[in-house]
Structure formats: C-alpha cells, structure tokens
C-alpha cells in the first residue's frame, strides 16, 4: 500500500556543535496539501528544510519520501528522488530565456549533442501550461518582473516532476498582486497531488495559502494544526510564548507644532511626484505602500542618494539641498537601508569595524592615527548600548556568524552612536526577515527615539499591522506619491488603509 504521506520525518534531529538545531521532529506532508512552516529566525525551520533537501545530513531519525526511507547526500540526490527546493534567493541566469533556464542541463538534443530547440521549448511550455502560469518563456529572464522570475524558478523545480516542493520565502520580494499570481500556480501544483512545504514570515500569506501549519520554536515542533483552526494571535503565541498585545509598545503621542522636516511638492525625474509631508520632533511617521510605490525612493532622496527635480525640503524651517549622504549625515539625517547585505554591511570587516565606521574621528590618537584599543572600547560601548543590545561573543568576530536580527542591530547601533547629532532617523523595512523578539525591541526603540530623545522618526514597512502599531501618523504611498495621511486615532481598521494603497 502506498504511503499516505508525500513526506514524513520520524524523530528527526540535527545537532551542530553546541546547539541542537532540530530536535526530535515528527512531521508529515500529505500529497496535495500546502503545509506552512512558521517560526522565528533560528527556530530551526531552515535547518529542517536543509536536512530534507540533502544540504545537511541528519544526526539521527529518518526521512521517508512516499513511505520509503531516504538519506540524501546532496540536493541533487533529493531532486532526482522527487524533492525539489526553491531557495529564497533567485538562482536564474539573467541573460538566458525562461525556457533555457527551466531546461538548463536537461535540454533535448539532436544529432549527437546539438540542442533540439523546438522540442526543448515544447517541454518548457508543457510544464508552464500544466500549472496554468502566465509567464513568457521566450524572453531573457532579466526582463521579467520579480514574480515572473519566481514562477520560472518554480517551473524549473517542477521539471523533475517532484512529489514534494519546498518553497523558502517565495514571496519575500513580491508585491501583493504578484503574490496572488504565485498562489494560483501553487494551487495548480497541489491539484496534481504534489505536497508543498511553504516557509514564510508573513502570517497573512500563510493563512491564505496553507492547509496546515506547523510551528517551530527552539528546534522543537510546538504545534501542527489545520490553518482554519489557528489565528494570527495563536501563531504568535506558539512562536514566541508571548501574547500579541505585548508586541506593540504603548504610544503616547504628544503632538507639537514645531516642525523638524517640511517636504513640499517634491518630485524627481524617475518615480516621485508632488510629495508633501511634515515631521515633528518626537513623532514616528509610518510610510506604508506596496514595494515600488516610492517609499524607499523618497527615503533615498532625503538621504542624498538621489536628487529632486522640483519642490523644497526644509529642515528646522530652513531650506536644505542635500547633495550626498555625507552631507545628509552632517545635517542629522540618518538612513538605515532596506537591503542590509548590499547597502549596510561590510562582510570583509569584523563587527568592531562595522560599528565604528561613522565615528572614526573619536579614537584618533597622535598624528591622526587610529588607536585600536580605544576603537575596540568604543565599539563595545556601541554594541552594549542600553538602547539596543547586540548579542555577540567577541567584538572582533566576523559578521557572517551573526543572526539577521543582530545584523540589523549593527546598522541601527552604528547611527545610535551619533545620536547627539541626529535629527531625523529613517528606517527602511527595519523588521524585514527578523524574528518577533527583535522586532519588538525595534518597535520600542523607535518609540524611545521619538519620545525620549525627540528625534523625528520615519518608519517604512510593508507590514501594515506594525506600521499602525508603532506610528503616530501613517502616510500611504501609491504610484510615487503620498495619496493619504491618517493620524493614529483616525484608523479604525486595516482595510481603511489598504484601499488607498491598491
């Protein structure tokens, strides 16, 4: 009798020196279901998937694919056996077409080794039509939108007719509409009896697509329930052992008439047009909108990374023309960028050097040379700063070994070291991809920066609940401009805000 599970694990354990990342996990995916994995970063879900897909080998326990015990030595073994994984970062070759990417290494050939173009194209088209994806296969993938690229990735994973498909945060960089299209594809995939494991940090999405949900905490499977039997609060409780009411800080808005930043009718030559808003000291203003709606572009403009073509920006009532980031920093405008690895961190620098870069002048000794001991002391101060505590073992450690939350803290702590010079602090998606514990710390920090230190804080996020939970006012972006602004007390529900953003 064939197994009733596409995939099953029994007492699966993966131990690394000093830590048990996956602890005695029993888990099963039925054919034709979407099974979501939830958990904070470091809860063990990605290690779990890496064991399933053959990247890591289990310390003990077993994995059964359609009832048969398997022990994959590599992701390729898993692929051939019927388990495909789509990773969070895209792995497409940009200048090849969709067909060429999907069939890469598996092309139909003729006359010995020449590629049989038409046959190969037919193969790719067949896979596409089977799952009802609307994506062009004959253009270079770099010309496709992110969601279309993501679909190409999935089509490629489907090439081997897997019995189980593993999707790691497939929607991380997609807009709302694009996500819908991806769901359509996933629904068609499961209708063929394929089991899908779906990892995501976005709870709303999980509820939309998942049939069942398994929640990990500290390497242990703490719950597996039908999605219909769980709600947001219950998930967060399972993930954190904490109630949702504790997630957002108390907001005590003290509106002032004093103006820190006045942005009037600002446009640039690319995306932004006619943007106006104000920011007072002691206030958190949330920027909400879809990816690409102009939030990040405005932040970059205020930070001097791009320039405006018309309109004015006034800081404390005086017009400023911000030429470059160095100039913005002099004026007290700081930005914590969205893309931490690309725009924030120096992987060739250790923790100390990453922290001290903006404040080098503080520990120059004789002849203007760096006093390395004073630098280490300064870095330790920054890292142990009462506002935001970094978790690290050695101030000289490599930053690759730090968690996502700690990396985010480096970028914020770096600016906190210059807090006396700060006027406006802009944080672009500061909570993206980090666990709820650290999110909570960041929310509290945002409020403290505003209320206690009287900075103006701009908080950019795609997660509506947190924007509403933390901000005094919310500016809603759409198509390159602010279409609506709400005070905190004017917002009754999320729908009221959402309808402006779409």
């Amino acid at each position, binding site marked *: 009798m064939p197994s009733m599970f596409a995939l099953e694990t029994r007492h699966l354990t993966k131990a690394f020196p000093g830590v048990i990342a996956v602890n005695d996990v029993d888990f099963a995916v039925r054919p034709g279901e979407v099974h979501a994995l939830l958990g904070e970063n470091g809860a063990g879900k990605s290690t779990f998937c890496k064991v399933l897909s053959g990247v890591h080998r289990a310390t003990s326990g077993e994995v059964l694919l359609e009832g048969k015990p398997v022990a994959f030595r590599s992701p390729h073994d898993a692929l051939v056996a019927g388990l495909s994984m789509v990773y969070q970062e895209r792995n497409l070759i940009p200048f090849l077409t969709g067909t060429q990417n999907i069939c890469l290494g598996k092309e139909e050939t003729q006359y010995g080794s020449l590629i049989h173009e038409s046959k190969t194209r037919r193969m790719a088209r067949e896979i596409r039509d089977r799952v009802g994806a609307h994506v062009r296969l004959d253009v270079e993938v770099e010309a496709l939108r992110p969601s279309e690229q993501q679909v190409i990735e999935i089509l490629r994973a489907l090439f081997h007719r897997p019995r189980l498909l593993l999707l790691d945060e497939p929607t991380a960089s997609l807009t709302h509409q694009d996500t819908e299209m991806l769901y359509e594809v996933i629904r068609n995939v499961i209708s063929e009896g394929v089991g899908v494991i779906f990892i995501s940090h976005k709870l709303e999405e999980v509820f939309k697509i998942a049939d069942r949900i398994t929640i990990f905490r500290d390497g242990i499977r703490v719950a597996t329930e039908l999605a219909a039997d769980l709600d947001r609060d219950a998930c967060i409780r399972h993930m954190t052992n904490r109630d949702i009411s504790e997630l957002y800080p108390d907001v005590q808005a003290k509106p002032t008439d004093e103006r820190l930043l006045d942005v009037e009718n600002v446009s640039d030559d690319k995306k932004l047009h006619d943007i106006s808003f104000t920011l007072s000291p002691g206030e958190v203003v949330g920027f909400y909108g879809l990816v690409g709606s102009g939030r990040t572009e405005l932040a970059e403009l205020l930070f001097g990374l791009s320039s405006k073509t018309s309109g004015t920006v006034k800081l404390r009532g005086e017009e400023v023309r911000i030429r*470059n*980031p*160095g100039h913005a920093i002099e004026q007290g405008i700081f930005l914590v960028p969205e893309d931490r690895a*690309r725009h924030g961190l*120096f*992987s*060739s620098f250790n923790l100390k050097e990453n922290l001290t*870069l903006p404040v080098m002048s503080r520990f120059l000794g004789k*002849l203007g*040379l760096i006093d390395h001991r004073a630098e280490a002391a300064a870095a330790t101060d920054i890292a142990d700063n009462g506002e935001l505590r970094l978790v690290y073992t050695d101030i000289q450690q490599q930053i690759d070994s730090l968690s996502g939350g700690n990396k985010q803290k480096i970028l914020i702590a770096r600016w906190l070291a210059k807090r006396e010079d700060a006027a406006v602090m802009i944080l672009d998606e500061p909570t993206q991809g980090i666990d709820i514990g650290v999110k909570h710390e960041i929310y509290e920090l945002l409020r403290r920066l505003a209320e206690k230190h009287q900075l103006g804080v701009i908080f950019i996020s795609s997660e509506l609940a947190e924007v509403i939970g933390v901000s005094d006012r919310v500016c809603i972006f759409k198509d390159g401009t602010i279409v609506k602004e709400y005070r905190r007390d004017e917002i009754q529900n999320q729908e009221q805000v959402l309808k402006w953003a779409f």
Partner: protein
Amino acid sequence: MFLVKYGLLLAAVLIWIAFGILQHRFYSPINIFSIIRQASIIGILGLGLGGIVINGDFDMSFAANTSLVGVIAITMMMNDMNPVLIFFVGLAIGTTVGAVNSLLVVRARIPAFIATMGMMIFLQGIAKYVTGGAEIYPIHVPMFYKLFGSSYTFGVIPNGVFTFAIIGVAAILFYGYSRRGRYMYASGGNPDAARHVGLNVRANRTLAFVLGGLLSGVAGLLLISMLRAANPSIGQGYLFPTVITVFLGSLFLKGGVVNAPGIILSAVFMASLSNGFTMIGLPFYAKDIAQGLILVIALLGICVLGRKSMRDIKL
C-alpha cells in the same frame, strides 16, 4: 587558519634557512642588503598597487609608468638639467598618469583592467618614442642620484633601502592606522554600503590611483638611480612580480585582505627567492616556475584553507 595567516613568514624563514645552508655567502651583509635593494622597487610599486586593489580597482599601467618616468629622467640628465627639477618632473609624470587613470576608471567608469591596459600600451609607446627604442645612459650621473639610489652608507647599506623603509612605514600607518585607509577598505569592500555611511567612494578610489601613480614615479627615479641607465621597458619586468607580491602579501596576517606589512614581507620574500636561486646556481627558468607555483599555491591557501573567498578582489 594559522597556516594561512603566518604561512608566508614560515615560507620566508624556510627559504632563508635552506639558502643559508646551501650557500653560506647568502648571509653576508652585502647579500642581505642586496636582497632588500632588489625588494625595494617591487615593494614600492606593490604598496601603490595595493591601495588601488584595496579600493576594488586594478592598475595594469604602473610598470609602464615607471619606465616612462625612468627614460624621461635619464634623458633630462643627458641634457644636464637640474637634478631637483628632474626629480619633481619624474614625480609629476607618475602622479599625472595616476590621475588620468582615475578619470578613466572612476569618472568615466571604464572597467579598470581595460582602461589601465590601454594606458600601459600608450605609455610604452611614449617611452619608446623618447629613447628611440634604445638603451640610454648619461655620461655623468648627478651626485643627487648617486646618493639617492646607488651609493652605500657605511659601505654596506645601499641608499635605495632608505626610500623603501620610509615609504613602507608610511604605508603601514596609512593603510592600517589612518581613517582614510579604513575608508578605502570600506569603499572596496562594499561601495554601496560605504556611500550609505556617508563616505566619498569616488574620492577614495581617485586618491588610491593618484598615490599609486606617485609611487610609480618614485620607483622609476629609484630604479634609474640604481642602474644609471634606462630603456623603454625597464619597468615592465616588474609588472607581474609586483602583482604576485600584492596578492601573496594579502595572505600574511589577514588571510586574503591586501595589507601593507604583507606586501613588504612578500616583496622581500620574492627578492630572496630570486637572489637565492641565482646564488645556488639553479637554471634560469627555475625562478619563473617557482614564482608561478607560489602564487597559485598561495591562492589555493586563501580559497581552500581560509574561509575567505577572493570575491572582494575584482580583476
């Protein structure tokens, strides 16, 4: 990791012991200073190129720049021009070439490898034009240049060593202990992130090209002071040894990050190797084979033993 970090020093000590056993004259003061003298040119050029590599760029033209400065200085000597004027003209040419490279690479955004290769070929052509392609030498070398590059202090210390020592100390302080040096590592390591913390990445890259050009000028003047003659390709032979020195030196202490002490040590190592091979009478091709092997083994060390990949170095 220890092996990667101190491997170069270990290798240097090993060859010093081996050459010393095989040929006792290897340890005579004259020979030791002769090694350091040989190391000077590669070392000075390497310290200039190192800064450019730290910023994530590359320069193919530094050796041709050295040749051009050399032939122009010798030509000026042949016309009995003022030695101090010659000196400053030499430095000015070197620096100007560096500045033009920075315009091509940093401002016009031509890939560094291609732009500076064009510059290299152009400079070689100019050097050939200046000399008519021949070896040239002045009848009378000014005292200034004898003191600078070819006399000995206390009878054993070649004066060229002093220039190397001064530049070496300055480079260690600049790259390892100055704010600008740190900013250069940041600019090369992640230019986008460097911009986001308010650094002027273009200014850092430009400065590295200009300093590199200046050091090519110094190396050119030092080289002709040692040789008392010049030809259009006197610098060219230093191109690959210098590139090897910079990358080999990046192993020392920092396991793959270009640094000044590493460059200095590896310049001395390369000179010792070449000197020792000659002293123990190995055939002429042995040096090339050894140098090539050492570079590849060193890179293997970085990529296999060390955790670091070489992706921070763009060529």
